[in-house]
């Protein structure tokens, strides 16, 4: 099977000024990330805010040029393709459907825009495709006539999904697609995304901070911490037997609806990760409750973890 997304040694650096007199600082947002996503599968990416998951998504979408490393989408180098070809291949769905839809255009015009931008479709063809995709995501033709402000959060996210799929891309990058939605609506959208993937043979990169959601949708999960993937494995294996102490803490912090269990002590302390000050050794060591001396000065190397995964920890 060919890989839909192949990322190799990907790195992204930003230069930031922290103050008037202080020197320029380098922030390494994504550091040596390598993975591949087989066509038709779903890779979930989890991590706290600032771990680089959205930066990674932007590089895979071709919106941000990597400092180093390569991204192959459907076997092609993104930066060799022009914008139109890229748009036919890979599309995003973002978190906030209130911000991602133009408030001054009708839903059907918003959904039609990717087709118009291609410049190769006739008006009739555009109308036919827009009507088809709106119906497919569960929006009536009457909804297409409305403005985004006249739609609920769930309906707007359906419109955003319609816009992403109208060019029939192979790959969709979902960046926290349900985080701004209520649980009942979240379930509707997750079910819709699952149906669309099955019916259209799509590949998803699914970014979320909600591990329960990721477990539900992803076949494989990568855990990011301060720009690196610290663990990656098949979903069931990762949830059953997490290898990295950070993955364990993330799993423990999921509050399942089970009364009487209380809130667990995940033992991460109150040091927050700062991508401008990555600690020496293992980058997780200041928050790790099992860290030993070695973790403070020697960075762990990538180790194989059965059945299909990897982990970066001296003690895993």
């Amino acid at each position, binding site marked *: 099977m060919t890989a839909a997304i192949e990322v190799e040694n990907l790195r992204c650096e930003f230069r930031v000024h922290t103050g008037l007199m202080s020197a320029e600082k380098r922030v390494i947002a994504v550091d040596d990330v390598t993975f591949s996503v087989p066509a038709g599968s779903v890779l979930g990416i989890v991590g706290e805010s600032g771990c680089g998951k959205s930066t990674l998504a932007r590089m895979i979408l071709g919106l941000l040029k990597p400092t180093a490393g390569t991204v192959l989408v459907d076997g092609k180098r993104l930066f060799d393709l022009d914008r139109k070809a890229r748009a036919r291949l890979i599309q995003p769905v973002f978190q906030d459907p209130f911000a991602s839809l133009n408030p001054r255009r009708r839903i059907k015009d918003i959904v039609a825009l990717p087709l118009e931008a291609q410049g190769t479709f006739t008006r009739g063809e555009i109308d036919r495709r827009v009507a088809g995709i709106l119906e497919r995501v569960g929006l009536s033709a009457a909804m297409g006539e409305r403005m985004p402000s006249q739609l609920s959060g*769930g309906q707007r996210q359906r419109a955003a999904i319609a816009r992403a799929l109208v060019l029939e891309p192979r790959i969709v990058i979902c960046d926290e697609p349900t985080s701004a939605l209520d*649980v009942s609506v979240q379930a509707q959208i997750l*079910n819709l995304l*699952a*149906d669309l993937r099955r019916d259209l043979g799509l590949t998803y990169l699914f970014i979320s901070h909600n591990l329960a959601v990721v477990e539900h949708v992803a076949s494989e999960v990568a855990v990011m911490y301060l720009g690196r993937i610290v663990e990656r494995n098949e*979903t069931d294996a990762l949830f059953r037997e997490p290898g990295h102490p950070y993955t364990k803490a993330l799993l*423990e912090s999921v509050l399942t609806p089970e009364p009487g269990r209380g809130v667990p002590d995940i033992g991460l302390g*109150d040091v927050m990760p700062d991508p401008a000050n990555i600690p020496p050794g293992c980058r997780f060591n200041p928050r790790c409750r099992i860290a030993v001396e070695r973790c403070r000065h020697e960075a762990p190397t990538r180790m194989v973890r059965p059945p299909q995964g990897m982990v970066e920890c001296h003690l895993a």
Partner: protein
Amino acid sequence: MSALLEVEELQVTFGGRTAAVRGASFRVEKGETHCLVGESGCGKSVTALAVMSLLARGGHRSAKRMSFAGTDLTSLSDREMARLRGNRMAMIFQEPMTSLNPAFTIGSQMAEVLTRHKGGSRAAALDRAAELMGRVGITAPGMRLGQFPHQLSGGLRQRVMIAMALMCDPELLIADEPTTALDVTVQAQILRLLANLKREFGLSILLITHDLGIVARVADHVSVMYAGEVVERATTAELFRAPQHPYTRGLLSCVPVPGRVQRDKPLGSIPGVVPAIGAGFAGCAFRSRCAHADETCTRAIPRRPAGDAHDYLCRLAPDWAELQPA
């Protein structure tokens, strides 16, 4: 047990037309955590603001009864209410950055709470601030007192808000989605902190959330809100074991539970959206989304008891077999 906060038949309207809260009733017992749970627009935040007398301009509240520690809140003047607020009842919000003044140091904002309500010197207030910051798990409180809100992380800011709410030793803490803007790891830490503080300070907490996972882990009692009404009330254990209202059941089926995931099966979901409730609306507000709805749902709906501290608003009789303790 006696109730610290009692709310009966609370109504809130905006501009005389939109009914945000339509007859909500609940009690917060002393020393317990009571959760108001529901989706956006169900009226849970407006309920809390109405209790605190903090409704936006144009908001109007009325209630059959609204009492706090024996005091009738509806009869208090603005002045008397201001004396209570931040003092005996305190509130924290979702986004700590917008509740802190960016132009003042953490220390001066915290000290003001105490000197305003209890008098005393600023130095003594700063000592108390430093002590409470230690209690909520902020390291190096002395340094933090001199910092500005933007210098703190989101989790630290929420800890500061909690410490600030505790300055006058309140009896009731109202927390409106206190962890929604935070990472899951920080969320667990903050919720653990609230649970510890409840025990140490004998606090009662009214926690507003949309997250059933949080409800299950921290609440003693739960009120489920839908379209401005409390549609089901129960102890936490019973609500999760034997939910009776179709909305509560639907909501519970929407939540993916780790370890019990069936990836090829769809999640449960509730079709449709929350309806807009206009003046003159009668009957069950959930009927347009409910699989059990029939014509009787357009008439007045009885509140049905389903046990000691359990009742719900529905035409359907309770499932007693399900309600038997396991």
